[in-house]
């Protein structure tokens, strides 16, 4: 119970710090576009900043960091299944793309 009641006592400054971090990370991801970073470096940077921001929001703003492991796993484990869908759909999309090149593009 201790862990659960602790979260209510966080000082406002905690949120301001996370907010500042989110601001900085968003600026960085905007700068990736602004300075026209391309290809793999671009995609890596976008993903890094995206996951950092998402992690901060989930952990601190949504308080998941201070929840019981039972809830944390219930929320975070099922989305892993999405990786399977991503893999399947990229194979399918590749196939569609190649079919279009073969039959539909003059």
């Amino acid at each position, binding site marked *: *119970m*201790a*862990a*659960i009641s602790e979260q*209510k*006592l*966080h000082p*406002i400054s905690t*949120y*301001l710090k*996370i*907010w500042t971090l*989110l*601001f900085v990370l*968003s600026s960085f*991801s*905007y700068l*990736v*576009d*602004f300075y*026209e970073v391309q290809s793999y470096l*671009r*995609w890596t940077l*976008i*993903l890094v*900043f*995206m996951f950092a*921001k*998402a992690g901060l*929001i*989930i952990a*601190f*703003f*949504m*308080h998941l960091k201070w*929840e*019981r*492991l*039972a*809830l944390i*796993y*219930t*929320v975070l484990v*099922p*989305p892993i299944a*999405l990786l399977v*869908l*991503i893999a399947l*759909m*990229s194979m*399918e*999309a*590749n196939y*569609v*793309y190649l079919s*279009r*090149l073969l039959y*539909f*593009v003059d």
Partner: protein
Amino acid sequence: MNTDTQSTGIKSLVEDWSADKQTFDISWGKLMMWIFLLSDTFIFSIFLISYMSVRMAATSEWPPTSEVFALTINGTHVPLLLIAIMTFILITSSGTMAMAVNYAYQGNRKRTVILMTITALLGLSFVGMQAFEWTKLIVEEGVRPWENPMGAAQFGAIFFMITGFHGLHVTGGVIYLMIIANRVRCGYYEKREHNIVEITGLYWHFVDLVWVFIFAFFYLW
């Protein structure tokens, strides 16, 4: 409620699931909100994955989002400016919401209501900017769900579906926030107040969270 809650880590996980008690030691409302958000995660993921396959399979060039969403201010051309402002607004609203939850736990009703109202207003301005963006794309650029002058025809369908669905979530969230803020102001919830505000906050942070992914995959990629 019980003695098991003292344990931490994996031990707590096993005990929560196997002991003769309810598994989740949180209010049912909060648990149901988490379950709803989990299901919503899948909905948005499916949208984004469909976007991925549509973009991968497109034979014509995907429209350059950086240019499509650029704004010209005083003759200066700034790429993706509106989207960046929208991102900052949504993050700020998430910050004020987190503070509202904190004040609700401190029992400071007045500050909770003020911060929730600010959150709702920021959300409203986000929806307003989205309406502006849609108008610009539809009227000036001629983007339609089935065609557009900039490139791959699938762009419009994906854009309107994803940002539209997210915009609906924000709109719904603003209404939700205003109802709860008003009830808190009237003292409707009495002692459950902090719990209700926290649940509302979870929904609002999720809306912000989804935007992080849309911003990365749709606008920046």
